[in-house]
């Protein structure tokens, strides 16, 4: 059962700016799914469409099989939404905010709220308008986690948080997800942090889907190739159209390519780099995967634009 199913989703801002182009992806129930992409990739818009905060221009989002546009996702599916853009009521104290939202959530966990408040070092008597950016984010996270949502959408949740708190949250999220089976869709630029918790990932670039699937599958799908040339430097025309993220540094050449591509076969590589001292083919890290796919998408967009 998929917790979220995005079908050919497009979104256009003010009828002029295309934020999303035909996105199709799924988030498996119980998964911790990462959503990554450069600025302006459409991550926040996609999350808002999933939360029912925006309506897609075309396509649809299904939450547990129900169209997000026809039901109120937040009420119907106990959906929690956290975003760095959300501003808690500035005149209310954190205690007042908790008192306000607690009755709205049938699964509100007061003990968890108290525990998070303590671990985040938040003062419940302070008004939200006086909280620093990091404190505000922590308070917002408390408000998103304490209702014990079955589906949690998080947009840049680690903004303004120090390493220790980040670590605590990551551990808390993992523990919570394991305990309650919460599905988490999390968008973040903090790839190092994200890589430790997600089991699925979707990469967006300029509103388009670049890749989506289980982390292991994606890593299996791509390979990072590093070639160290012999005394004679690597010649210029050695790249192929299927190679992505080609980088040269002295005698060293690295690129990423589809693992199934024939150019990665050992004999082909040997033929192409006969003088190579060393050829390494390995699984890419999330950061490498993201950076390469995003740059490749940028390059293609630039080519399309110039054409």
């Amino acid at each position, binding site marked *: 059962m998929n917790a979220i199913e995005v079908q050919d989703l497009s979104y256009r801002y003010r009828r002029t700016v295309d934020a999303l182009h035909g996105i199709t992806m799924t988030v498996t129930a119980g998964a911790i799914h990462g959503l990554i992409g450069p600025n302006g990739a459409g991550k926040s818009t996609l999350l*808002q469409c999933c*939360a029912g*905060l*925006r*309506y897609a221009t075309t396509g649809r989002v299904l939450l547990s099989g129900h169209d997000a546009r026809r039901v*109120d996702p*937040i*009420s119907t599916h106990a959906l*929690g*939404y*956290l*975003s760095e*853009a*959300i*501003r*808690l*009521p*500035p*005149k*209310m104290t954190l205690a*007042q905010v908790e008192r*306000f*939202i607690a*009755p*709205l*959530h049938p699964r509100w966990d007061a003990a968890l709220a108290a525990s998070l408040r303590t671990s985040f070092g938040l003062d419940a008597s302070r008004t939200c*308008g006086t909280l620093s950016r990091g404190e505000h984010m922590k308070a917002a996270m408390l408000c*998103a986690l304490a209702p014990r949502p079955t589906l949690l959408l998080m947009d840049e949740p680690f903004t303004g948080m120090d390493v220790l708190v980040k670590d605590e949250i990551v551990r808390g999220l993992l523990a919570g997800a394991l305990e309650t089976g919460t599905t988490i869709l999390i968008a973040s630029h903090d790839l190092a942090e994200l890589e430790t918790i997600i089991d699925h990932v979707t990469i967006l670039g300029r509103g388009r889907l670049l890749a989506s699937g289980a982390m292991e599958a994606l890593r299996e799908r791509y390979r990072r190739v590093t070639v160290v040339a012999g005394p004679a430097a690597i010649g210029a025309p050695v790249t192929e159209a299927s190679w992505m993220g080609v980088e040269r540094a002295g005698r060293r050449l690295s690129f990423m390519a589809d693992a199934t591509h024939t150019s990665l076969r050992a004999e082909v590589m040997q033929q192409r780099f006969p003088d190579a001292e060393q050829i390494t083919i390995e699984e890419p890290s999330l950061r490498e995967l993201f950076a390469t796919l995003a740059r490749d998408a940028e390059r293609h967009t630039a080519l399309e634009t110039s054409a």
Partner: protein
Amino acid sequence: MTWSAQVWHVFRKDLVTRWTGILFFAVMLLVSMTDVVSAVETPWAAFSSIALPGAFAGIVIGAIATDQPARSDVFWATQPLRPDAVATAKLLYVLLIVLIAMTSTVVALRYFHVGTAALITAVGGRLWLVLCYAIPVAHLATISIDRLDPNGRRARIVVLMLVLLAVVVATIGRAEPVMQVIRALPTALYVLAFLGGVALFVRSYQLRERSPFVSGASIVCSLLMLASMVASTTPDRAAPVAAAAPVTVDSASVAFTALRDSNTGSMRVTLNHADVQAGMLYRLATGTLTVVMRDGSRMSMLLGSRWMSVRPGGPRQAPGIALAGADSTARAPREPTVFDEIRLLPPAFERLRQDSVSRLLLDWTLETHQLHEVARFPLRDTLPHRDNGAEVQCISGEAKVDGRGLEIEVNVRWLPLVLPSSWWDRTEAMGRSVFALHDGSAMTLTPLVARSFHSGKGTPDQFGRRVASAGYTLRVDTAFGANPDTDLASVATSQMVVAVPRLRTTRRFHAEFGMP
């Protein structure tokens, strides 16, 4: 949580978090109430007329800005709350503020003993006016939501803009061509605009983004509602209400004119005195104003001296004082016409009633007094003088002569002095201060600056047990009333004359003014 429970939940949250703003608004109302029930225009009348709608707009816009209708990044939208429940809660909040404002109106009208039928008419009219202001304010908050932030910093700028807009609308609204257009619009259109405005407000909460159509329609509805408000508050231009035939009192001719200013709701009754006799004092003693409502109920109020305003430079006193052997005519002030003006000052109170007032009945007494000299002594002297049981002391201070005139500080005390009238005011004290010049002629002086003034007021018996004193600076200015031929230096060596008015004639008058 059910829909109604959500409405109550959000409404209660707004009350809890915005109570300081509501309290401030209530205080502002209380301040404005003192202006309404007070007989005189209070110093903060102008302030509260701007601050009150400003405070109103502030707390309404603040509440809406906190839970904005645009849904992409507002906190309430991330909670399991129904948009129409939030919109209804906001409308309830606006209505609560309106009801608080209306409570003050009802209290003010009950204070004036307005009958039930007239009360319902007045409250209904006022409620419509306040709603015609409240809904556009709420719309302003929703349609400018992209420019508002939850902290309310930008909201304050919007409030300021709103007040400026109200001033502009009020100014434009007074232009007759605009008023003709506004009055020509059918009432049903205003009602439709109101209902449409409420529907658009609720609709704006259900949208995920701002809709240009909803925003445009909201602006149209708001303008129509504001037009209705302007049309209701400026029914007519100022026009003469009535003019009674002149009457003769002790050879002086007194003409009455009344002018009602519909914009301010005030009425001015002017008594123009002509051919006044020298040495005579014409004064309004008492008056009663009866307000007749359209349902037949009536209420009366006593007009005291506080209801009268005297134009500076126009004392209610005949020029000159008849002094033995003195020629007062030659030294008389240059403006021999004197007048009284009664400013019926229920501007707020009459505005509250709108069309509920049918007629105004005015009964008053005009007294003429003959001034009699009771003391004469040189300046720079303290001279007890007894007259009719009253001891008069005059203590003069320094006299300074400069290029343009003469300034003398004078303190006068009457111990005790039974005045022949009910009221004691500054103009009476001034009226008795006359200088006799060294050549034997007299000159009435009009003090430009009165300081440390103290007087009592009440019935003659009460007043008779008091010590009255007046201390003021007399300035004889060649440009103001004094004979330019007067040798100012000689005034310093002149004598001070104190005169006491004695009742000569009492005449009662009655006038009736129908409301236009």
